[in-house]
């Protein structure tokens, strides 16, 4: 028997079965779709868990699409899902611009769209944004650091990838707070691209200059933990306080140990559950606010036990 013929026959029959199966499914309850930029860190995992848990609680089905940080992939995933027929979209976008046309097409097809965590460049392309103002997180983090060091001295900033939404917002928040603290000066400010080992090497190098730092303020926890290791290795933890943002499990553990001074939670679970809740409301035809903001929470040694699982 010709193997090529056999192979193509198998593929065609599989495709037919898939087609029939999808036709059968679409007549009943359409599933919701959750598009996420990637699934490689604690934040995205927590967001996904929040959404799927909330969907189960509401008794609806949700399919998770992982774009693996590729904007083009996310666009194709949206188009494919819309073609198959879905009840609503929750999206954590890879790109602030790239997904806009695909979302507009979905909205035009009558599918409600909720954007979560990261804003898109054209707010009207979605029905609702659920998330945080990064600048507020930065403000809360810097304000805590400024108060802790008594309002004077050198600080250093570890930034996310320059130009990313979170990096810009959080860093703007730092500088807004610094306006009220003229005696605090920024000795170093550099990107470590969210990466622990990059932050570690960077802070090791800063410490070599002998600059008298009072605090290191990082755009995320991964980098704060790199800074923490460098400061501990240099036996300077009694002189330099370190601040992170995101409240990842390892950062919470470090706060509980009294090594990391504070981290900030962007209430990821609340963002996820609110987004899922909102898209279901929209699908039922209810009205919702175009923007639902979730508050940041400061986590120090005093309240860390409430956040440890």
């Amino acid at each position, binding site marked *: 028997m010709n193997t090529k013929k056999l192979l193509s026959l198998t593929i065609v029959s599989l495709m037919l079965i898939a087609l029939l199966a999808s036709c059968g499914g679409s007549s009943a309850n359409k599933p919701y779709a959750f598009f996420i930029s990637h*699934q490689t860190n604690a934040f995205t*995992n927590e967001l996904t868990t929040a959404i799927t848990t909330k969907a189960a609680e509401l008794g609806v089905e949700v399919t998770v699409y992982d774009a693996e940080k590729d904007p083009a992939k996310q666009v194709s995933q949206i188009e494919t899902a819309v073609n198959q027929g879905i009840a609503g979209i929750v999206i954590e976008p890879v790109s602030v611009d790239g997904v806009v046309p695909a979302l507009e097409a979905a909205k035009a097809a009558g599918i409600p769209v909720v954007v979560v965590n990261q804003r898109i460049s054209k707010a009207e392309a979605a029905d609702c944004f659920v998330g945080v103002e990064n600048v507020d997180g930065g403000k809360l983090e810097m304000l805590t650091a400024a108060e802790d060091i008594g309002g004077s001295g050198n600080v250093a900033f570890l930034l996310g990838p320059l130009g990313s939404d979170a990096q810009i917002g959080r860093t703007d928040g730092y500088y807004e707070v610094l306006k009220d603290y003229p005696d605090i000066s920024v000795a170093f400010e550099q990107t470590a691209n969210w990466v*622990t080992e990059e932050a570690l*090497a960077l802070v*090791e190098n800063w410490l070599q200059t002998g600059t008298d730092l009072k605090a290191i303020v990082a755009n995320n926890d991964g980098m704060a933990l790199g800074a923490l*290791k460098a400061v501990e290795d240099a036996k300077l933890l009694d002189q330099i306080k370190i601040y992170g943002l995101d409240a990842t499990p390892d950062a919470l553990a470090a706060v509980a140990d009294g090594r990391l001074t504070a981290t900030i939670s962007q209430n990821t679970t609340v963002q996820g559950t609110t987004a899922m809740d909102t898209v279901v409301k929209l699908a039922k035809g209810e009205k919702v606010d175009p923007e639902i903001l979730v508050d940041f929470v400061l986590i120090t040694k005093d309240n860390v036990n409430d956040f440890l699982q």
Partner: protein
Amino acid sequence: MTKNNASKQARLNSFRELGIVAAFFLILAVLVILSPNSFARPTNLINILKQASINGILATGMMFVIISGGIDLSVGSTVALAGVIAATYAHPGEYPLVVPIALSMLVGLAAGIANGLIVAFGNIPPFIVSLGSMTIIRGLALIASNGQPVFNVTKAFENIAGGFVLQYIPHLVIFFLSVTAISAFVLTRTVFGRRVYAVGGNEATAKVSGINVNMIKIGVYSISGFLAGLAGLLLASRIVSGNPTAGQSYELDAIAAAVIGGVSMTGGAGKWYGTVIGALIIAVIGNGLDILNVSSHFQLIIKGTIIIVAVLLDVKGKGNQ
């Protein structure tokens, strides 16, 4: 070839590597002048050695592969996988320290053997094989860790890379020096080493002269994989966690170190000490520019320029002879 000619040839060969050594000292001199109080301090020089170590270990493995005429793009992913596995078995009160150490290196070795087998027997270009395995291994690292950093490791585990010998010399540096010494011996003093050069220089001739080319290929990828496993263990110990996204683009830094050090991308040529200098140059630039508080955007441009200029000097130097 007469004895006289042979020694003349050897002198010429070592002269070729001088360009890069000179470039290294030139970069050092510039940084010492720009930052006499911070850069040139002994503690910072040790710090640079420490920061060069992980890339230096990866570059050493990469050197074997490139000299044999291949390339291994999977080492960055292997660093992540080995690190995640190491951290997973290094939680307090679970397994003895030898378990994470052995497992991480076995994982690296397994990845290397797999690469080697496919390159040797599959007749697929090494670039493609290791591009594929790079992606697969990254996936395995994410699966093994549930996509999250693995933390909460023992003090002893942290001490693998974080400890010091004689109070001042970081363990990382000792690992780097040991790997370098063993590799230098294997490459220059063993039959295997000579055959690696022979296979990279001209595979057909090597085959005709009775060398088991496939075994040599499996050998070099195994070395590269094993050293990537070791680097993963050391990185996980250094950042006190196993991170599935760690080690991204480490393969490029390793290739850069080897190439800056004069290892020929077409195979058959390269010196162990060139690779060491290459790794040091990359670390020195990063350290010096951080200390001078140069924006990371400019750092990228400076690093890239130095890679190209270093190779240009090397090629020019060889051309003149």
